[in-house]
Each structure stands twice: as C-alpha cells, then as structure tokens.
C-alpha cells in the first residue's frame, strides 16, 4: 500500500466510511480533495471510480478504477473495488478474478473473502464456495454463521454427510443451548435434521428428531417429519397414528390423507378399496367440515361405489352452489368410466329439477332455484371440456337466461366461445362479465387477455389500465415494471400473429429481463438468510432459482422469441401476417407495398399522438419509451444468434420437453450446423420417437444432408452415418418417400396395446409437409390427399381434429398453394361452426 500522510490518510479512511454509508457525493468530493495533492494515489483513484459508479457514470467509473489499479497493482483495495464494479454490472466472471487477485495480496481479509463466497454461491461454483467457506471458518471458528455456511456449501455440493459432520461438531461446542425454543437454534437443528435425511439415514434422522424436539419452534415440521420417517421405515402402525394426529390438526391437507393411506398398506383390490372407503367414512364423521375427506373417496372408489359417492358429493355441492365444482371434479376424468358416470348423474339431476325441483323425482326434497343454475353451469363446463361447443353453449345460455347476473356464467360462455374459435364473441362475453363486477381485478385481467386474443390491442390497453394506480405517469409501462408477465406474453403473441415482429420481440425480451431480475434478486439473500438463519427457506430458494427458467412463462417467451428470430432470418423483408398465407411472392410484394403505405400514414398519425402522450408522460415525471416499435430487435445482424440466447437456458432446464429440441433443430439447421441439428433430432427422438413434427424435421435433415453431399466433412458425415439407423431405421437416404409412407402407415395399422390406434391429425400434417418437400414438383396432390384423410374417417380423426390442428392443416394447404383450401375450409366450418376463421 502506498502510504498517505496522516491528514490524507485519515481522509481516506473517511472515504471508506462514506462508501459504507452510501454517501457517494460526499465521497467523491473527498477523493478529489486527496487527488489534488496526490493525483497518482491508486486506491483513491479506484474509490473515486466506485463513487462515480454509484452516481450513474459508468464510463468514468471504469476509467478511474482502471487508472487506480495501474498505479497500485499491489493493492487489495484496488482489486476489491474493481471486483465490486464488475459485480454491479453482473459480470461475475471478471468479478471473481478480481476478488481472487485481491485475496492473493491480502490472504486473511474477511470482508473480501465473504464477498468472494457470495459470488461463488451466486454463480453456483460449489467447490470453490466450500473452499472459501472453510477458510472463513478456520479464521473465525467461534462464529456460528461460518459453521453453517460451510455445512450449506457441502450440502449444495451434494455431500450432505459432510454437512452433518460440520453441524454435529459445531453443536457439540455449544455450551448453553437455550432452554426455551429459540428460533435461530430451532432452524439450525431442523436444517441439521433435513441434512441427515438427505444422507439416506432415515433411522438416524428419526433418532435425531427425537433428540431435538424440545428445541424446535416449528412443531408442525417435527410432526410431519416424524410421520414421514416412520412411513419410510415401514413402521406402519406408528406412521398411521402419526398421520391421524396430523389430520386432527389439519383435516384438509391432502398430503396427510395420502400418508395415512400409505401407512395403512391398502392396495387396489376390491376388498382394500372397501376398507379404504370405510376409513374415509369414519374420517368424514370425525371431521364433518373437511372437504378433503369428502372429495378423496372419489379418487379411490370405482364402479358402483363411485357412482354412489359421486351422487352424494355432487348433490351436496350443487345444492350449496360451489362455483369451482367442475374444476375440482375434472381431474377424475382421466378415468373415462368416471367421466361418463358423472355426465349421467348431472343430466339426471337436470331432468329431475326441471320436472319436480328435486335432484330426483322422488319428491322428497325441493331444491333451491340455484340448484338448476349450478347444474346447468356444471354441464356447460363438462361439455366444453369435451369440446362439444354446441352442447356447452346450449347449457350456458340456459343458465344465463335463468340468472343473467351471475358473473361466472359469462366468463364460462367466453371460454366456450374461445374454444369454439369465436374470439370476438368470447371477448364480448367476458366483457359482459366484467361489466357486472367492475371491482374484480381477476375478471378485468381475464377480459384484457381475451381482448388480446382477439387482437384488439386498443381495447385491451384501455381495460387493463382501469386497475392501475391513478397517479401513474404511464400506467401501461407500470405493468412492465410490476413484472406483469402474462400481459407482456399476451401482447407479444398478439403482435406476432399480426406480423409485428419488432413489437413482439420487445415483449418477449421484457419477460426475459424479468427472469434475469429474479436471478439477480437472489443475491441479497445469500447474506441475509445466513444472518437470519432461515436455512430451510434458503435452500429451497437456491433450488428454485436453479429451475427458474423452466417456468412456463419463460418457456413460452423463449419459444415465441425463437419463432420471431427464425422468421426474421427466413424473411428479412418482414414477417408474413396471417392474411398473407398462401400468396405468391409477387402478391406478397404488392400486399406489403400497400401495407407499408398504410403503415406510413398510420405511423405519422401515431407519431403525432405519441408526441402528445410523451409530453404528458414527461410532465408527470415518467420515462418515455424511445423505441415502442422494437426496431432495436429488428436491426440485429444475427437473428439466429439471438434465438440461441433464448434457447440455451431451455436446453439446460427444460431438456425434458421435446419443444426445446424441436426449436433447437430449427435454429441449427438454418445455421447449417449439421451435427448440432443431429443432436437435437436425437434428443427429440429419445423423448418421443413418434412426435409428428419430428418426422418432418427428420426429412428436412436428410434432404439437407443429401443436398450438401459433396461439401460435408468426412468426420461429420461419419457421425451422421453412425446415428442414421437409430433415427431412420432401415430406410436409406434415397428412400425418404418410403420413410414417410411408413410413418403414415404406422397409424393405420392400429393395434397398439391391443386397442385400435387413433388416427392423428398432427401426423397427417407432418407427413403432408414431408411429402411435399421430398418432391415439391410432383407431390402436391399427394400432400393434399394426406391432409384430406382427416375428413374421410370421422371416428378415427375426431379426437385430434382440434381447432388448432385444423388451422394448421389449412395453413399447410395454403403454403402448398393448393386449390383445395376452400374445400377444406368448408369442411372445417362444419366441424367448428362457431370458428370465425372458417366462415366465408
């Protein structure tokens, strides 16, 4: 360290204080004062940079920190400061290097070591983290935090046994264990207990649990663990007793019932089933208010017993009027027999109610008028679930006529119409629901979503801001600030449908940023949780963060973004909107020109309006969006590279979803990275060899290989050859037609698992595309024929002939420039009479 004279030395110490106390302006002044006399004092220069960083002057910050370092390479302070700077910019790799430099110079610096360890856990560098935590412990063995930090490190490394050892040693050193349960101690011993469980030593965990019970605050956790351990140790009777105790504390916890069930060792035999139902009967008597005790028997009962129990259950709920009844029942529909039984019951109720106001015609009871209402509502949802739009509408309309003021009815009508393909009608129905109850934020959001599904952006924006705080400068942007991801996603998807790629990407990147923020937000917890001893919560936080990007919202954003970037790559002139399906290039050009002119005009008007809005926003102190069109994303030179950025986290965290690899293929084949494309195909194949899209991709891959025969490197070729048969079976590259024919025939052969196999519309689509790619000149008629198979055999294809698949099939026909589009549309209009897309 380059020494400063005493006066400046003291001033320098004050600078450090300023930093700790976040007095950045004052710190900056102080630094300048020192530098006046000692312009080359490295540490002061570095600190000056750090102050600049906090005053939002990035460039100066880096300048000064680097300058400081140049003047004093041997200063741990300079390196530490550099590390802090990098860390604040989330450049963890560089930050780690700086810290390690600093520690080389000052081996025992507790502060730096601690910061270092935070970064290590944040970047999931577990081994290094454990090493640092060990050093910390060696330096301060009297400090509890360091013991626990090390135990966590071992735990995360996958060595819970070492963690247990550390905690045991530490606990032995404790002289006075608080006699009354103390929260922090309690958390520590419970964490200790969960570590023992993770080593697999259940008996040990149980013994330990007995020994710590008196020190634990969270008694529920102790009871749950005990029951769980007893069950795992196959001590059934004790386990049963434990679960019964738990139930007495909370008779609506499904997990307790399931534990009880397991500990009674009852299987699937009729005899066991009867016993189990008896158990539930007793529980219902003991806990008459428990819904779980009434609902669970429906899961276990079958046949006549099921009908009897379901009858009682449904009557009860319909009489009471429980709006969520169907949602709760439909999980039973995995069993077709139960689904049919429930339908029969509900239809029976309706007939009887119409006739005699009772659930049966016995005349024993008269039900309240709401019984009919809820039965109609239930039936509407039931038939909607089966996508019988016509029937569903009939029941919901009857219900609305009965009680037009009930909000749920209009919501459900909206959902039915949406499933039927009438997006505008759906939106109107949900808007009616909204108007019945203006104070319900949930309905307001749903309504916004439906407006976006109907691509009515203006109406949606107007609706969604109704729930924004009144004092906001820019309520729409506030939704982004509040991480309202559903809104970003729905807006983005609407833009994508309309071919507005820039705006769409802007939305998907918003979602990505939220996820980055979530990851960042965890940083503060590394220190906080150790200090506050919320250990079990901390471990589950770490695990959650590691899985964060497998969240459906992220997956959706990523899939859409990849689609945007791929289409930018394919069509640098701009994406096709839905209207442009099936146009020739010349027509498209003309259409685009016309569109552009209209756009220019609209843009001018929009610009004028925007200027006004911007003025308004600035006046209220908000920040004006400089790039509402998302031009920044459209300008990228490397759309596929951008797509890969979204794909990477999915490959790590959503590798078990076939979509990840199907998307990967789309990117790699365009980058002409044959081996990576192959790898994606292999992964998809492993997950679901029968996937429809996969077949189309396999054909495309084979064609790409064929086309480049000459130029493919031998090494690459040999890898492809090596895997060929696992993907293509016995089919040679020259016989792709046979490959597709076999794929198509597979579904005709039937007899999988002894039952007639359903036809699959997605397969027809994939085969049609494949056929047309194999010989574009000749195979158009053949592709058409394949697609029209779905219209030939109703019973075979009805199941997969969904609205989405029909839209896809038609899109495929259009892209084939088929003459049979209208013919197809007419057929689809019969299958989906409500779908606006098929109305001429």
């Amino acid at each position, binding site marked *: 360290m380059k020494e400063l004279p005493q006066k400046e030395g003291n001033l320098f110490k004050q600078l450090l204080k300023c930093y700790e106390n976040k007095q950045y302006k004052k710190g900056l002044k102080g630094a300048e004062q020192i530098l006046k006399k000692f312009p080359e004092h490295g540490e002061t220069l570095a600190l000056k940079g750090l102050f600049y960083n906090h005053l939002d002057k990035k460039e100066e910050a880096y300048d000064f920190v680097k300058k400081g370092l140049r003047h004093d390479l041997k200063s741990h302070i300079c390196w530490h400061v550099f590390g802090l700077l990098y860390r604040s910019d989330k450049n963890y790799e560089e930050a780690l290097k700086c810290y390690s430099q600093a520690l080389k110079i000052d081996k025992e610096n507790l502060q730096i070591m601690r910061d270092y360890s935070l970064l290590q856990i944040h970047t999931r560098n577990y081994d290094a983290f454990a090493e640092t935590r060990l050093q910390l412990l060696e330096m301060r063995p009297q400090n509890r935090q360091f013991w626990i930090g090390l135990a966590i490190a071992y735990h995360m490394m996958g060595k819970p046994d070492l963690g247990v050892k550390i905690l045991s040693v530490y606990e032995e050193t404790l002289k006075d264990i608080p006699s009354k349960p103390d929260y922090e101690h309690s958390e520590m011993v419970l964490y200790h207990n969960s570590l023992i469980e993770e080593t697999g030593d259940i008996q040990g965990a149980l013994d330990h649990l007995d020994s710590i019970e008196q020190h634990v605050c969270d008694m529920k956790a102790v009871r749950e663990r005990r029951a769980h351990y007893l069950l795992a140790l196959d001590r059934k009777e004790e386990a049963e007793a434990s679960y019964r105790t738990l139930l007495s504390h909370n008779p609506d916890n499904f997990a307790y019932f399931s534990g009880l069930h397991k500990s009674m060792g009852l299987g699937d035999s009729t005899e066991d089933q009867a016993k189990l139902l008896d158990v539930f009967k007793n529980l219902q008597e003991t806990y008459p208010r428990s819904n779980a005790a009434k609902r669970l028997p429906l899961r276990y009962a079958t046949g006549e017993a099921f009908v009897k129990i379901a009858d009682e259950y449904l009557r009860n709920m319909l*009489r009471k*009027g429980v*709006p969520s009844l169907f949602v709760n029942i439909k999980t039973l529909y995995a069993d077709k027999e139960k689904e049919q039984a429930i339908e029969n019951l509900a239809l029976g109720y309706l007939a009887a109610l119409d006739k005699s*106001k009772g659930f049966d015609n016995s005349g*024993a*009871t*008269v*039900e*309240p*008028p*709401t019984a*009919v*209402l809820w039965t109609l509502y239930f039936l509407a949802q039931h038939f909607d679930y089966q996508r019988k739009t016509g029937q569903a509408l009939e029941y919901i309309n009857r219900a609305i006529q*009965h*009680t*037009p*003021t*009930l*909000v*749920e009815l209009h919501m459900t009508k909206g959902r039915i119409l949406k499933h039927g393909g009438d997006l505008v009608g759906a939106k109107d129905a949900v808007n009616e629901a909204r*108007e*019945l*109850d*203006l*104070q*319900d934020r949930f309905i307001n959001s749903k309504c916004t979503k439906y407006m976006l599904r109907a691509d009515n952006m203006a109406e949606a924006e107007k609706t969604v801001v109704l729930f924004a705080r009144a004092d906001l400068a820019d309520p729409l942007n506030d939704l982004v600030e509040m991480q309202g991801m559903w809104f970003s996603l729905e807006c983005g998807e609407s833009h994508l449908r309309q071919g507005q790629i820039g705006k769409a990407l802007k939305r998907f990147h918003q979602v990505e940023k939220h996820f980055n923020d979530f990851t960042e937000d965890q940083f503060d917890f590394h220190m906080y949780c150790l200090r506050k001893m919320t250990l079990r919560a901390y471990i589950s936080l770490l695990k959650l963060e590691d899985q964060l990007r497998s969240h459906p919202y992220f997956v959706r954003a990523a899939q859409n973004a990849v689609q945007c970037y791929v289409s930018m790559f394919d069509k640098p002139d701009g994406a096709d909107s839905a209207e442009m399906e099936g146009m020739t290039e010349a027509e498209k050009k003309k259409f685009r020109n016309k569109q552009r002119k209209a756009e220019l005009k609209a843009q001018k008007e929009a610009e004028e309006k925007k200027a006004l809005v911007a003025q308004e926003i600035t006046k209220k102190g908000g920040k004006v969006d400089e790039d509402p069109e998302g031009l920044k994303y459209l300008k990228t030179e490397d759309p596929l590279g951008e797509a890969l950025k979204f794909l990477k986290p999915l490959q790590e965290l959503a590798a078990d979803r076939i979509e990840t690899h199907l998307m990967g293929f789309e990117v790699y084949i365009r980058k002409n990275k044959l081996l990576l494309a192959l790898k994606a195909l292999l992964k998809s194949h492993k997950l679901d060899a029968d996937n429809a899209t996969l077949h189309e991709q396999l054909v495309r891959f084979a064609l790409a290989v064929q086309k480049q025969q000459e130029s493919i490197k031998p090494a690459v070729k040999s890898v492809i050859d090596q895997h060929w048969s696992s993907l293509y079976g016995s089919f040679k590259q020259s016989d792709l037609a046979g490959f597709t024919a076999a794929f198509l025939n597979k579904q005709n052969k039937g007899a999988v698992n002894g039952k007639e196999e359903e036809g699959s519309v997605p397969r027809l689509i994939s085969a049609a595309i494949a056929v047309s790619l194999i010989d574009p000149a000749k195979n158009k008629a053949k592709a058409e024929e394949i697609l029209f198979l779905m219209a030939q055999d109703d019973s075979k294809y009805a199941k997969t002939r969904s609205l989405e698949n029909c839209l896809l099939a038609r899109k495929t026909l259009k892209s084939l420039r088929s003459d049979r589009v209208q013919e197809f549309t007419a057929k689809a209009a019969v299958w989906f009479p409500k779908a606006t897309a098929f109305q001429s």
Partner: protein
Amino acid sequence: MSPPPASDMNSTTASNDKLKSSAFRVGLGDVTPNNLGQLKRLNTVLFPVTYTVSFYKDVLEVGEFAKIIYFNDICVGGVCCRKEQTPGSTSSQDLYIATLGVLAPYRRLGLGSKLLDHILEHAQLPPTTGPKISKVYLHVQKHNKEALDFYEKRGFKAVEEFPNYYPQLEETGALKLEKVLLGDD
C-alpha cells in the same frame, strides 16, 4: 360474483312451505358504481322499458331507496326509487318506485316483499334531508296480475288509470298504485 359487505347482509335463513328442506341465505346490498351493471342487467330482463344513463346516475344517489337483493350470494332482484316533491305541497315528498323486481326463478320466496318492506320502512323513518315522505306510489301494467296482487296485499290502492301509459308496448294501459304513509294533519 361480489357478495355484499357483511354488515349489509342481514343474513336470514328463510324457508317457505315449498322449500322446507333446504335453507338459503338472503341479504340486501347497496347499489355501487361497481355492481351497477348487475342492476342494469336485472332491469333489462325484468322490465319492458329501457332506462337511461341519467336514471342510473340518480340511482347511485338515493341511498337506501335503491337496493339489490342476494339469494345465496347471487344478485337476483332489486329496487330503484326516487323522491319527488308532492305536487302542491312544500312540506312533504312522494316516493316513486320506478322498478322493483325479482328474477323469475326466485319469485314467491319472499324476496319481493323483503325489498318492498325495506323501502317502506325507510320511507317512514324521519328523513335526513328534505321534508317527510307522505306516500309511496308506482305504475303497473294493467294486466300484470302478479304485481297487482303483490302490491294490493301490502295495502297499495289503485287510484288512477292511464290507458296509454306505455305507448311503445303492446299493452299500453297502466294503473297508478299508491300507499299513503301519513295522515293529513
């Protein structure tokens, strides 16, 4: 569905000879800007007349004289009244029942009575502003036997006939029914 605030929900367990076996809950609720849509919905299906925006604006101002009734937390009926200066008098007001109705499946369960009782009860309380209410009146289509019976049972008397009161409807004739609350003194 937005059930009324708890304080408003003078929850009763009503029963009726036809509905002995099952109890149900009935409660009155205020009309607010947020649930006004429900009242509009009700009036659209119950009455042949279309009411204006200003009608509903006034409804929000009359306090206890506009109410919604809930059956098992579902809005199934309502009443809207307005106060008028008694013609030729400055010391009293009349209360006009513009709409009072219950959805068809929920009739004959005492809900209409509950709405009307509420109105009559409040009409008889000393007013917070303005002069006392001396009478309550309304118009009913001449052929609406259900409504006529309903009001006559509660002491309303037909006082005037208007053969062409609803010119836009098929049945144009109406009766004016009224109930006097205060004796002339």
